[in-house]
């Protein structure tokens, strides 16, 4: 049996998630024993459109992105959204809160008319997505686990538990107990609590757990001395894209 063929694509993003794949240095040879990589702009020149699984990074922010994304969907048996930008529009969606023209002016100044840009959306607003690897950037082990799951026909891990679970199991000092506001209690885990482990609070890059108690979390952050504006920033840095917007 020939090996499954996988390909990588990107839209509006920093390509840091794809870099995480390349960072799997110790595992790359084992990975290549399982799959053939046929398109990966960050790592190779060849670009073959005959593939089974497409890993797509980045948000959809321009009209011309849509036909390209649809072409990927048609070519692939499975499409996996990788990273916060692709799965939930992530940081890109912050600009949806202001008129596009104003956002362009802030970013490009007097060259703003040279760039096309619209509403930032996750890729599942345009095509059907078969799985998500969350995070900014994605976790390397999570990527490898997802590939393994797909190869044996299992559902990829969805990590629908809070960052606190892995944080406590690592026996980190809870940042909330030492007065540092943290989004860990309502943010999806699977990252092995990498931020709190090194002393920085979780800011929600993997999205919210499906049963996030946002109201109580807001009150909790307020008790930690955050203003409504601060809390709003915490809640929206990665998680501002609302599901309803998908139909907008």
């Amino acid at each position: 049996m020939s090996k499954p063929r996988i390909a990588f694509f990107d839209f509006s993003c920093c390509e840091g998630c794809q870099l995480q794949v390349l960072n799997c240095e110790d595992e790359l040879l084992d990975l290549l024993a399982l799959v053939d990589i046929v398109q990966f702009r960050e790592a190779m020149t060849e670009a073959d459109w005959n593939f089974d699984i497409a890993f797509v990074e980045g948000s959809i922010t321009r009209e011309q992105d849509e036909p390209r994304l649809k072409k990927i969907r048609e070519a692939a048996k499975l499409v996996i959204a990788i990273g916060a930008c692709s799965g939930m529009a992530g940081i890109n969606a912050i600009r949806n809160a202001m008129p596009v023209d104003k956002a362009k002016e802030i970013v490009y100044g007097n060259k703003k008319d040279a760039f096309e840009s619209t509403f930032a959306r996750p890729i599942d607003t345009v095509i059907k997505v078969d799985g998500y690897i969350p995070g900014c950037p994605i976790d390397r082990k999570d990527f490898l686990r997802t590939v393994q799951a797909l190869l044996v026909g299992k559902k990829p891990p969805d990590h629908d538990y809070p960052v606190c679970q892995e944080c406590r199991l690592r026996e980190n000092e809870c940042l909330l107990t030492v007065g540092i506001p943290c989004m860990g209690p309502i943010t999806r885990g699977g990252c092995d609590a990498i931020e709190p482990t090194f002393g920085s609070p979780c800011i929600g890059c993997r999205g919210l757990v499906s049963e996030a108690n946002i109201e109580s979390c807001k009150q909790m952050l307020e008790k930690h001395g955050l203003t409504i504006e601060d809390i709003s920033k915490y809640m929206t840095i990665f998680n501002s894209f609302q599901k309803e917007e998908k139909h907008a």
Partner: protein
Amino acid sequence: MEQRVMEKKDVKSFIAELIKLYPAVYGPVAKGKSVVFDRLKDAGEAKFSYTRSILPPKKYLMPQQECIMKFDMPPNPKAESVVEFEDQVIVGVHPCDIRAIKLLDMIMNGGNPDDNYNKRRGHTVIIGIDCVPDQYCYCSSVMDLRCTDGFDIFLTDLGDQVLVDVLTEKGKEVISKIETKPASSTHLKKQDELLEAKKKLFTAKFTGPAQLLPLELEGQWEAPVWEDMGKKCLSCGQCVLVCPTCYCFDVTDELALSMKKGDRVRKWDGCQLAGFAYVGSGENFREEPGARVRHRYHRKFKYHVDSHSMTFCTGCGRCWVHCPVEINLVEISNRIFKREAECKA
């Protein structure tokens, strides 16, 4: 039980001797502003004047994550169970955590004894130590302050000297490594006085006897306290992950990247996490956070009391300290007692 006395200045050399003699000696050490149990490389690292560790010492009997089986995939499938243990000493264990280990011993030897836990337990020496409560401690409401079993030796700080309660053969062997003298009635009297004084230090208290909670809970399945707590609960699971008597776990098979072999791994899990009661058919039989809080409370104060006649909360205060929204079992218990009182009036 034999009671002896050692000079306080000798405690350090006692620990140093243990480190020399045993493959692994664990004790409380500082981590940031907190304390964790960790391997002692040097006797000076131990911080005995601590209130509570982040995770309980149960982690040396039932690690957060452990491989319980190694397997090979077809065409030559093979499976072999894995039990890893070594002779270990856990030093500086507080009475609440000693009681918790005693409760776990009961559970792990129930219907289907847990080999991994029991092997480790059999190779463990527990050296207990007395403590001073803070505002989150409430062991005085749920257990006897005097620690009489569950340890090998127990140390009580009497000032310049340390009273050593020697309970087991393992304890006798351990204490023989250092010079001690038989305790006198003065020493024992001092210990009694200290326990009396300790009782007065608790600010968090149950308003009724914990043993009565199984009865008090009758008719309170729909009490407003569950929904109130459910509204606050973030379902972060910290309360159950730091609990010294919780023992729930999840088991997953982790394939090596070669896809030819793998490990069966068990990892701590807990009933306050939203997905804990999520089953294969797609239903979650404790969907509401309030129902989960209620379940946890009944696990601590009713179900196990009915089956084992023991309260499964030791009042260590870890869940309270870690709860981001300050849910605590003292408040819940007192509301349970209160509503009963109102009904009677």
